[in-house]
């Protein structure tokens, strides 16, 4: 190392290592696909939550309206 000569490390099962790296890549692709699907589900969930929120707001307004109508009776 001191004279700058390259040092090498012997790897006996190089082909096995390459195969394992290939398998890891396949698994990573699989994980990315799964994450994509989960994101899609999350987006669907978010839009459903938005719809719920809107419905809840509508219900609140209507209940408020009913409350106003019923508890402010007009004298005949």
């Amino acid at each position, binding site marked *: 190392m001191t004279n700058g000569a390259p040092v090498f*490390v*012997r*790897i006996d099962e*190089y082909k096995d290592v390459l195969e394992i790296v290939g398998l890891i890549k396949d698994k990573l692709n699989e994980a990315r696909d799964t994450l994509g699907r989960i994101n899609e589900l999350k987006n669907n969930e978010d839009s459903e939550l938005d719809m719920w929120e809107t419905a809840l707001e509508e219900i609140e307004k209507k209940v408020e309206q*009913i409350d106003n109508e019923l508890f402010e009776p007009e004298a005949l």
Partner: protein
Amino acid sequence: MGLLGFLKRKEPSADELDVPPIPPALNEGEDLGLTSIGEEIPPPPSLEEEKIPPFPSPLEEEKEGEPIENIVLKEAAERKAKQIILAREKEEAKEELKPLFVRAEKFKDALREINSIKADLKRSEDAIVAIGDIMDNKEREFIKWHGILDDIEKKLMLADKILFKGG
């Protein structure tokens, strides 16, 4: 002659039988030629000496009708192809046996990367556990919210009933 004497066979005489004439008697020193028979017959060939031609394969039989030159050329080409394949296989086997080396710096980098990937995987696993907890909480909140909606619906029905009864 007895009662059953007619059943007995009558022995035929030599004149009645169709027998060839008796050969003339041999003189002294006369040879019939039988002694020379053993000398004339060659000894049976031994199995080792006997060269049996190889049984022709069906492929060779198919080649009948093709010019011999073509057959010879084809066979030579096949032999050469086999030799090339064998040589390649030998080279591959040698390559497999050859030790492979990677530069020490690159090897260290690879080890560092592997450790970094391990840490990333740990973080991912923690994230999955955290997401699982969030999902559980969400599930509980959804159940709670469903209960609240049911209550609202019941109370609304009650209010409706009361109001329309009074009207």
